[in-house]
């Protein structure tokens, strides 16, 4: 097996993650996050080679348990697991036993009996991954739980920013749109603040969580003022069913005031970059003109960084497994 020069050294620095599970950014500290980002950097280089395979997770089984559909995150974890040499199984309980009345815990306990080493879970309820982690013997990775957290997304976003700007400390980041329902926003606020960025939350009052100002981030309802001088403008996905008079009056009104387009982006810093966790509603929260411009958009980088960031998490959890 060939490895990139220097990767061995990166992998050698892989630090044994001091936790069994990867559930929440709130559980992490700066040292852990920095180590994960360093490790992920090494994997980015690996992923750009022809031969991408390592054997850090050889013999290990990774189970993707997605109660909510997500092609992007699921395939990202699948690739991350396979590139590290794990056997990967994808389960979509939506189409099988859950509809027969089996509970989350029953499903988890059943799968646990098949002796997976790592369970990657996405579920529509906040706290679902944490609940599951209390009932199974393997490591659990939270791939999104309701409106709570999506920690690997925050890690890949931080990685994308660090590679684009060379640092995170001191960056001004505006997180824009449906903050209320967004687990991406919650994880990103926690991680970016931990790493020293200045975070702002921008969106209509109906899409802001109660007392969001107490998260230590400035809250703006005027998009242009909110993004003023920002290095990064991150647009969040707004589910279409929340438009149409529910949380916002209409798509066109939302786009007019909160959609990220060239004109609004001009209020950010001159070198500002645009991010989006995907999948995008083009013409709703973001304009294609901006999203597809490689000079300003980091959106494709985010997808690439996603695989590397997840490899870093898997490798770190596996390092703990090896020590066990």
């Amino acid at each position, binding site marked *: 097996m060939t490895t990139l020069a220097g990767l061995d050294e990166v992998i050698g620095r892989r630090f044994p993650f001091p936790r069994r599970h990867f559930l929440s950014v709130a559980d992490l500290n700066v040292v852990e996050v920095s180590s994960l980002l360093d490790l992920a950097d090494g994997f980015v280089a690996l992923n750009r080679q022809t031969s991408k395979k390592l054997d850090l997770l050889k013999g290990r089984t990774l189970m993707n348990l997605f109660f909510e559909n997500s092609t992007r995150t699921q395939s990202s974890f699948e690739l991350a697991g396979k590139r590290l040499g794990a056997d990967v199984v994808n389960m979509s309980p939506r189409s099988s036993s859950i509809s027969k009345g089996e509970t989350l815990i029953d499903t988890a306990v059943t799968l646990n009996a098949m002796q997976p080493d790592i369970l990657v879970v996405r*579920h529509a309820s906040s*706290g*679902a991954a944490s609940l599951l982690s209390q009932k199974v013997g393997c490591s659990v990775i939270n791939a999104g739980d309701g*409106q709570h957290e999506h920690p690997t997304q925050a890690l890949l976003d931080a990685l994308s920013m660090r590679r684009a700007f060379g640092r995170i400390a001191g960056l001004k980041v505006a997180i824009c749109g449906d903050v209320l329902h967004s687990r991406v926003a*919650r994880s990103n606020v926690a991680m970016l603040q931990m790493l020293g960025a200045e975070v702002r939350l921008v969106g209509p009052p109906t899409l802001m969580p109660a*007392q969001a100002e107490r998260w230590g981030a400035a809250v703006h309802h005027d998009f242009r003022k909110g993004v003023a001088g920002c290095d990064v403008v991150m647009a969040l996905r707004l589910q279409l069913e929340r438009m149409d008079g529910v949380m916002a009056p209409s798509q066109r009104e939302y786009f007019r005031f909160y959609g990220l387009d060239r004109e609004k982006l001009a209020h950010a810093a001159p070198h500002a970059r645009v991010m989006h966790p995907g999948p995008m509603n083009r013409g709703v929260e973001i304009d294609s003109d901006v999203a597809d411009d490689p000079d300003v958009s980091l959106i494709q980088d985010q997808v690439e960084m996603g695989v590397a960031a997840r490899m870093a998490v898997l490798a770190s959890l596996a390092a703990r497994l090896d020590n066990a």
Partner: protein
Amino acid sequence: MRPQAFTNVRVVDPASGWDGPGAVLVRDGVIADVAQGGGLGSLSEDVEVVDGGGALLLPGLVDLRVKTGEPGAETKETLKSAALAAAAGGVTSIVLQPDTDPVVDEPSVADFILRRARDIHLVHVYPAGAATKGARGERMAEIGLMAEAGCVYITDADRPIVDSKVMRRVLAYAAGFGMQVAHRPADPWLVAGAAASEGEFAARLGLPSAPAAAEKIMLERDLALVELTGARLIVDQVTTALALESLERGLSRGLPVTATASINHLSFNEIDIGDYRTFCKLDPPLRHEDDRQALIEALSTGLVKIVVSAHAPAPAEDKRLPYDEAAPGAVGLQTLLPALLAFHHDGRIPLIDLIRTVTCAPADLLGLPAGRLAKGAPADLVLCDPNAPQVIDADKLVSKSKNSPFDGRTLQGRVLRTVVDGRTVYEAG
């Protein structure tokens, strides 16, 4: 049954205002004599003397808000298991919520419950009747017939009566039969889908939440309807500082309103939810600490007069779920008294005032023959060591369901013996 004399006890009887040494003589299921300060004098030879060893002797507790699963969901709790839990907690009279399956919205279901309770023969059981058919908030239930059958108040339990016209008619009609209506103040649209109290904590956990104003909005409506109809209202579990302000204004205008507080909202705040602890998922949800403090203050000033256990059994399969899918509610019959004593131990509320909220205050509100240590009253008594510490182990609770938020908590106070109509129905082992 031999007469019994309870001696060497500290008698706390809020109805007469006595808190001090004394003794109580029980004969033929009723209290034959009460000695406040002194002894009972010379006792005839057939009297069995129970030496309380300095423990508290209280009137048996009266709990206005209890749910069981019978009829309809006996895996949660049966009338028998609830009665055993009540006995173990020193609760001698329970009022059952009507939201069973079938709903207590006509006299035969009330008859069934009363007949079962007579067969079980442990504690006094009183049904509450539904205000509307199926507790759906649309058409009035047979309130008069249920009153005749023995229902002690009218309520749709957890479900607010949304339609103000229906609520007005229920209040007015029930008053014609001398029945009070208990109503949960919650704006149905604001609370729809909510699992927590709106604020920083719920936002961080990503839980769907409702603002405290939801409680105030509905309470203000209810107060206006009370003013309109002149009917008496029981405010079912006030939980927020905002609603307490409304309540205070209503009472100062002389409205015939009585508010209850649940022991859970007096004992816990939202932080106890911690890492999505579903045993702390309640309806109404746990509030901010400011709200809890305001509620304790309201209890000490008498703004809130009654404490309920809000006993709501939910089996493990309904609780071992993601937080927003888990069933709300907590069992509480067995922990009510020791949990309440916490405010006595803290020095927040005098013991006699605390005991009033679970004895003569609820009994007098409904006119039940309970809650007092008076000559001729039914001999419903609790002997309790107020200082004995105990760590609550939910698995050891008597209820069929073990969903206690007090699990793992240390409480001070232990029921030693519970007496109903002169019969000992519980004795600590």
